[in-house]
């Protein structure tokens, strides 16, 4: 033992003390922090902690009306899935539909009513109470209504279907205005107009992709956005699974869309000549004796100008291809031609779609399984008659400028983003003295509001949907709240009902739920009394549980024959484009990407979802043919200005192998200036520079008819994308097999076929 002197002793004590302290600190530091277990005060009936509860509802991300099942745990929505029993989507759901959760949980959601206390369009929103907000709005409305100047009130809403549309209608009536406009950027105005002209019905028919053996799609991106993409995907898959009768899909469009990639054949016709091409095919079908109807002579007359040689010249598709397409289209049974998106958005859009209807008629596809089937009238209200086209909104802007609008009520609609700059819509809004927005988010349009009364998201509120493009029979579904409201918001319907009460025009419902129930009560009353449940309450419970209601009322025998006048009026002019072809050599095609019309741009999942064709995330790009790029000396990532007569947007070049050299394409959806943290100041919005060239037949802007030029800026940015090299290099990663092999396939997977 060494001698321990005083000094050593102090050292020892010090060391021991430090050691002990370190030990205590060590153990304390690895302890778990304190947590709480918060029980319910009163546990809900169907609640079990740790066990998922599913609620059926309806997706409201687009107008397709897919049924959804929402998985909730501990009172929080966790996952949205397709409702397997809903005939539209049969369990499937697209990316945007699933990202609906991020509408609900979006960090940029408005948590309560706001009042603009500084200049319009600034950040000067302050929190107010609902009472305050509603009073402010109601007093404005009341003054106008009482003075009999209700028409100076305009309502602009996102396309709303079902009984909520009725509620809004009733409100508009109450305040005495006929300025109720539903507005969806991608509402197929041209398609309605074409159907009206050819079939005499302003309806969307059911396109039976599922049973068709030969599909000609003229610009319709049916797998990724056109009408009801999930249902079309099901039909596409089912047709592909036909064993010996595997469906053959042809896509005719200047820029390959996801549907074009999935198709068996992609035909890059000149933009705007789709209708001419269709009539060329029709000409061949009639001329080669495939059509034997009584009105054959009339058809021969009207189609005489569309010989294959001429059409080949105009469309830039070789005669042999045209002949082959016509032959196989006529010979395949059933076959189907659809048209939309790119083909419908030209100056000759309605004519084009009429020509496509004619093609269906001549091939005998109308009213046939695997062809065009007419839907029965929807059981609930649809909004088409109220859908605002470009002309309507331009008119509204005109009235606003003329000082004829005093109050504008916006519901979850963003025309400032989707209207071309040339329409000066934003400036027109500034002329309106009072704007109130019911949006859940601040977007470019609601930023201009004076008062924002934020509404619930669709997962927190009641509603219903009767998908119009349908499934060939009547179908409807109720959208029920799957989660208690997260914030101090109110359902759109309830806000409107409250306003109606405050201006002394109470409606006959107490709440949105009441309105929806009332509507369904009517459906219940109208249903066959032999088969229906004993009471409405049991019907209602069953409806909520199943999430969907349907009635087998197929319109099988309906074959609308066009009359002689209709036939005589068929004809497609060469498309017109704004801008001089010399100065502006390229046709701009703004196309709908994963962000829908831009409303999904604030959802991080969608921002992070690689684009279906290019795997780009977080940003905009300009698609350009490799040859064009080479001629212009541009490579991927070169920042360019896309200039039209109306203005310019800036985006990087992306060399895209499947686009015509005289066309450039840009995705819609990015380029928000004020739409939350995920969307703002990202990319460019090609809609801004569109020329206000309107197809008079549909009243909508011809969004594919703007010519542009590319001006290199000399700058370079890195396009953010997930892919590496998109070439297989002979590694056989995606393997293919010839036409013969697949016929051996017998173990096809059964997919529920919609009976038609």
């Amino acid at each position, binding site marked *: 033992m060494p001698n321990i002197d005083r000094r050593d002793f102090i050292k020892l004590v010090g060391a021991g003390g430090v050691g002990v302290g370190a030990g205590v600190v060590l153990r304390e530091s690895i302890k778990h922090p304190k947590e709480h277990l918060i029980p319910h005060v009163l546990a809900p009936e169907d609640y079990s902690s740790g066990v998922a509860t599913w609620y059926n509802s309806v997706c409201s991300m687009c107008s397709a009306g897919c049924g959804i099942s929402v998985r909730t745990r501990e009172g*929080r929505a*966790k996952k949205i899935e397709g409702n397997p029993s809903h005939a539209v989507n049969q369990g499937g759901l697209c990316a945007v539909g699933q990202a609906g959760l991020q509408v609900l949980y979006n960090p940029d959601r408005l948590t309560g009513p706001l009042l603009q206390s500084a200049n319009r369009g600034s950040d000067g929103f302050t929190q107010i109470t609902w009472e305050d907000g509603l009073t402010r709005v109601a007093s404005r409305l009341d003054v106008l209504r009482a003075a009999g100047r209700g028409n100076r009130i305009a309502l602009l809403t996102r396309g709303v279907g079902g009984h909520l549309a009725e509620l809004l209608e009733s409100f508009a009536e109450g305040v005495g205005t006929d300025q109720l406009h539903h507005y969806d950027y991608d509402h197929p105005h041209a398609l309605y107009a074409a159907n009206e002209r050819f079939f005499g019905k302003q309806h969307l028919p059911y396109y039976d992709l599922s049973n068709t053996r030969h599909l000609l799609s003229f610009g319709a991106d049916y797998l990724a956005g056109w009408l009801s993409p999930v249902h079309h995907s099901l039909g596409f898959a089912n047709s592909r699974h036909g064993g010996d009768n595997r469906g053959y899909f042809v896509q005719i469009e200047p820029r390959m869309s996801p549907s074009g990639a999935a198709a068996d054949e*992609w035909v890059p016709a000149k933009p705007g000549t789709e209708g001419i091409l269709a009539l060329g095919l029709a000409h061949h079908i009639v001329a080669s004796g495939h059509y034997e109807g009584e009105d054959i002579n009339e058809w021969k007359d009207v189609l005489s100008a569309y010989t294959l040689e001429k059409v080949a010249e105009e469309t830039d598709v070789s005669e042999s291809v045209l002949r082959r397409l016509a032959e196989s289209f006529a010979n395949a049974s059933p076959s189907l031609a659809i048209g939309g998106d790119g083909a419908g958005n030209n100056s000759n859009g309605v004519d084009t779609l009429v020509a496509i209807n004619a093609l269906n008629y001549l091939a005998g596809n109308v009213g046939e399984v695997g062809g065009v089937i007419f839907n029965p009238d929807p059981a609930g209200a649809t909004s088409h008659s109220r859908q605002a086209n470009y002309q309507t909104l331009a008119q509204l802007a005109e009235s606003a400028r003329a000082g004829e609008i005093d109050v504008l009520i916006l519901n979850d609609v963003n025309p400032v983003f989707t209207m071309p700059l040339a329409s000066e819509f934003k400036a027109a809004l500034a002329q309106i003295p009072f704007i109130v927005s019911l949006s859940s988010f601040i977007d470019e349009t609601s930023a201009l509001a004076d008062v924002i009364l934020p509404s619930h998201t669709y997962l927190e509120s009641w509603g219903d949907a009767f998908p119009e493009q349908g499934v060939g029979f009547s179908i409807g579904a109720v959208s029920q709240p799957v989660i208690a409201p997260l914030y101090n918001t109110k359902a759109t319907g309830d806000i409107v009902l409250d306003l109606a009460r405050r201006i002394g025009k109470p409606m006959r419902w107490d709440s949105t739920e009441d309105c929806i129930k009332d509507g369904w009560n009517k459906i219940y009353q109208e249903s066959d009394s032999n088969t229906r449940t004993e009471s409405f309450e049991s019907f209602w419970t069953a409806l909520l549980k199943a999430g969907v209601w349907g009635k087998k009322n197929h319109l099988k025998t309906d074959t609308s024959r066009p009359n002689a006048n209709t036939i005589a009026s068929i004809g497609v002019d060469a498309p017109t484009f704004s801008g001089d072809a010399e100065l502006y050599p390229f046709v701009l095609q703004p196309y709908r990407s994963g962000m829908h019309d831009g409303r999904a741009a604030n959802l991080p999942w969608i921002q*992070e979802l690689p684009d279906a064709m290019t795997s780009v995330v977080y940003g905009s790009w300009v698609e350009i043919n490799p040859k064009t790029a080479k001629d212009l000396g541009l490579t991927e990532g070169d920042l360019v200005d896309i200039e039209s007569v109306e203005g310019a947007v800036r985006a990087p070049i992306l060399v895209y192998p499947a686009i015509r050299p005289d066309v450039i394409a840009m995705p819609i959806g990015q380029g928000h200036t004020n739409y939350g943290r995920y969307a703002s100041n990202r990319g460019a919005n090609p809609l801004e520079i569109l020329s206000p060239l309107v197809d008079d037949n549909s009243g909508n802007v011809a969004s594919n008819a703007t010519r542009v030029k590319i001006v290199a800026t000399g700058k370079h940015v890195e396009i953010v994308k997930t*892919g590496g090299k998109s070439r297989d290099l002979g590694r056989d990663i*995606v393997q293919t097999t010839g*036409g013969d092999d697949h016929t051996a396939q017998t173990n096809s997977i059964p997919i529920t076929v919609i009976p038609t």
Partner: protein
Amino acid sequence: MSFLDRITEGWRKNRKPGYYEDFDYHWAMTIDLDQCSGCGACVTACQAENNLPIVGEDAFTKGREIKWLRIEHYWEGEYPDVKLNVIPMMCQHCDSAPCETVCPVSATYHNQDGLNTQIYNRCIGTRSCAVYCPYEVRYFNYNDHTWESPLDQQLNPDVSVREKGVMEKCTFCIQRIRQAKDNAKDDGRRRVRDGEVQPACVQTCPSKAMVFGDRNDPQSQVSQSLNDPRSYKVLDELNTNSSVVYLKKVEAEG
């Protein structure tokens, strides 16, 4: 079981074909490339179900996205005779998985259901499994990810949120498989019925291109689909014995 037995069992597991026939399940998936349109619904479904982080634009720029399931694009030919082939690529759950041998801490191994596991809390982050994986479907957490409130309320409580330094990958939605087994036990059944369990991607696929099920059950949809003459495995020449089988895209003549 003696130590030696365990070792020999380990060897047997990797050598003997049909080893999993002894067990209840051998999960497998088929993807029909003739039906897949590359829409990306499965990608989002996976992200929603499995608490995949929102990594942000910077991380994408750096190539640090986390997508257990991604769509690969392969262009073929030049304009105008150009085609795009897409293929969903996720963990192939190889029965002879290269990643399993290399993990020094056994954070990834093959379980008795024929699944290639990934145990996040065991992972020390050597990232060697990602190097060894020829399909490059293993994703690494380069930093801690945050969900801006209230986005965090969406997180699936049945799936762990991964911390920085941990490898992750497709699990065939193991939480759903376990849930289905649990339900089967509640019902007094020994086995999960065919179609009772579907990973999120399979469930959501709008064109029903994906089929998931038990390969040991000859009646199951997936077994029938595996017998399709169009079936093939990606990078089969590497002998990974993957459990994800693709059905060839058909090139039909017009």
